[in-house]
């Protein structure tokens, strides 16, 4: 048979596609970011707390307040303040915190690693326990194992974090002495940490390991265990519940039978065939919960004296320290967008159907 070729349309070049994707991602990022700045800014103006009062304190006279207001640029028109702010942010200047009197960026460099450390360990904990628990429950739906997983998860969900934290401290620190009691290292080691160990990442576990200070490292582990377990419990609760529900769905698919027909052992059917499919929606779930943890949990940080982002932003908020609130929000937003993108990339890696 003869077939006359109609010229096929040329597929746009790979390079152009790539640039287009990158461009659209960057654009979306910038839009989110600008929106974030805008909303934060507006919020800063509607919150009924006068930032100047926070700076000058209770005793200040009216004249001192006015002077401070001018110094902070708060007397200028709103749009101008916003414009100045955005321009500065894009130059990497998040302004100066009214409360700590330091550049917000520097403050955040101090508090964010602490939160990052906690959130990361907690998420790892949540993933390592939540997925198996959810799978276990899904493979035995309706049994007592399923119920136990559900109750444990729910308990995690409905217990206030300070309750868990304080009880954990009472038991594991107060009574058993297995873990450290608040702060990132004990007071014997804190001087070493502060004055001797070079600060590379700000994450104690990494910095102390880099410096070869294993005593500090060990101590830091003891201190991080409890707060991250408490936070991890929450992500575990959520992840296990979602895993169960996704898993149940996958296990009723035909391809699972196919795998069994091939004589695949049960572990492989569940942990390879089904789990790979479960990972597709689960990635979003995990990313979201990680991002939420990175916002910092004020209560956990308070109970464990963990100087993190949550406490920083909340403090700033209550003192109407708007540069700090804005800065914190911007950083949280950035982290969020980054994690979103990461989860998108992972998603594409795992799910071939997503273009």
């Amino acid at each position, binding site marked *: *048979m003869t*077939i006359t070729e*109609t010229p*096929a*349309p*040329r*597929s746009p070049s790979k390079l152009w596609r790539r640039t287009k994707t990158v461009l659209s991602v960057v654009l979306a990022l910038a839009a989110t970011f600008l929106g974030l700045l805008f909303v934060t800014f507006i919020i800063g103006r509607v919150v009924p707390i006068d930032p100047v009062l926070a700076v000058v304190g209770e005793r200040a006279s009216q004249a001192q307040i006015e002077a401070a207001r001018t110094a902070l640029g708060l007397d200028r028109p709103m749009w101008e303040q916003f414009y100045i702010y955005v321009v500065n942010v894009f130059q990497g200047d998040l302004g100066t915190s009214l409360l700590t009197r330091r550049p917000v960026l520097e403050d955040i460099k101090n508090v964010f690693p602490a939160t990052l450390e906690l959130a990361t360990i907690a998420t790892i904990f949540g993933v390592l326990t939540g997925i198996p628990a959810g799978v276990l429950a899904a493979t035995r739906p309706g049994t007592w194992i399923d119920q136990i997983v559900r109750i444990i998860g729910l308990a995690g969900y409905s217990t206030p974090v300070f309750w868990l934290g304080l009880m954990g401290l009472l038991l594991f620190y107060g009574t058993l002495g297995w873990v450290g009691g608040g702060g990132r290292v004990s007071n014997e080691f804190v001087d070493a940490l502060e004055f001797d160990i070079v600060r590379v990442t700000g994450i104690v576990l990494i910095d102390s390991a880099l410096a070869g200070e294993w005593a500090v490292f060990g101590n830091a582990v003891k201190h991080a265990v409890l707060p991250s377990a408490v936070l991890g419990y929450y992500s575990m609760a959520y992840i296990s519940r979602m895993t169960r529900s996704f898993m149940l769905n996958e296990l009723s698919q035909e391809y699972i039978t196919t795998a069994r027909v091939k004589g695949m052992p049960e572990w492989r059917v569940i942990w390879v065939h089904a789990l790979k499919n479960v990972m597709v929606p689960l990635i979003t779930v995990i990313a979201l919960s990680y991002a939420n943890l990175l916002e910092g949990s004020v209560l956990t940080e308070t109970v464990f004296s963990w100087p993190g982002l949550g406490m920083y932003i909340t403090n700033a908020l209550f003192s109407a320290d708007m540069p700090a609130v804005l800065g914190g929000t911007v950083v949280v937003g950035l982290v969020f967008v980054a994690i979103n993108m990461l989860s998108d990339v992972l998603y594409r890696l795992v799910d071939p159907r997503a*273009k």
Partner: protein
Amino acid sequence: MALIEVKNLSVFFEAGDRIVQAVKDVSLSVDAKESYGLVGESGSGKSTILRAICGLAPISRGEILIDGKPLETPRGRAFTRRVQMVFQDPYASIHPRHTIDRTLSEPLAIHGIGNTDARVVQALKDVGLPESFRFRYPHQLSGGQRQRVAIARALMLEPEILLLDEPTSALDASVQAETLNLLNRLREERGLTFLMVSHDLAVVDHMCERVLVMQHGRAVEEMEHGALANASMKTDYARMLYEASADRMLG
């Protein structure tokens, strides 16, 4: 003048980094009240042509005319009242959470046609389903029954043209027979025009006045009804198809 005219239609899909040419430069025309068949290899673009008419696939080149007039994009309400489609997979084409009643009355509601109850009952009767099925959910029906519901739904708006995408390939022989009979009866009663896809030559031969054979997205050969039975096809591919089928038919 032809009711449906497809002129030099090409359909391209972007799939990842590749361009898939699903349909290449296909022309066909269907007269009013005619039944026109599309057969051919799997993946040769048969479904895509139907989808392109409905606006579910892009028209990359060429044009499609109904009654000599080009189609508007998106297809308007007038179009939907003239042209309806029955999908290949009766399991995927009916909303799993809606009762049959809801599925059938939906088009009436969309077009503000009253007298719903009577029409739904009549539609069920037309496709030979008992009235008691009216409030069932799709999962309570067999594949053949679902396909009849899909046909009933397509007929709710009393269209002139029915696009049928392998309406019986998911059905077994007895149900297939029922469905084919039903379609023929309805065509006669209502003067419908069919554009029908199938990969079963016997079905097409039974149903259609003219047949277009497709391969690799291209039209290979158009045959009149008699030509198939006489085995008087001109191209190798059409002959191959015929022989492989006839082989079984006669054995």
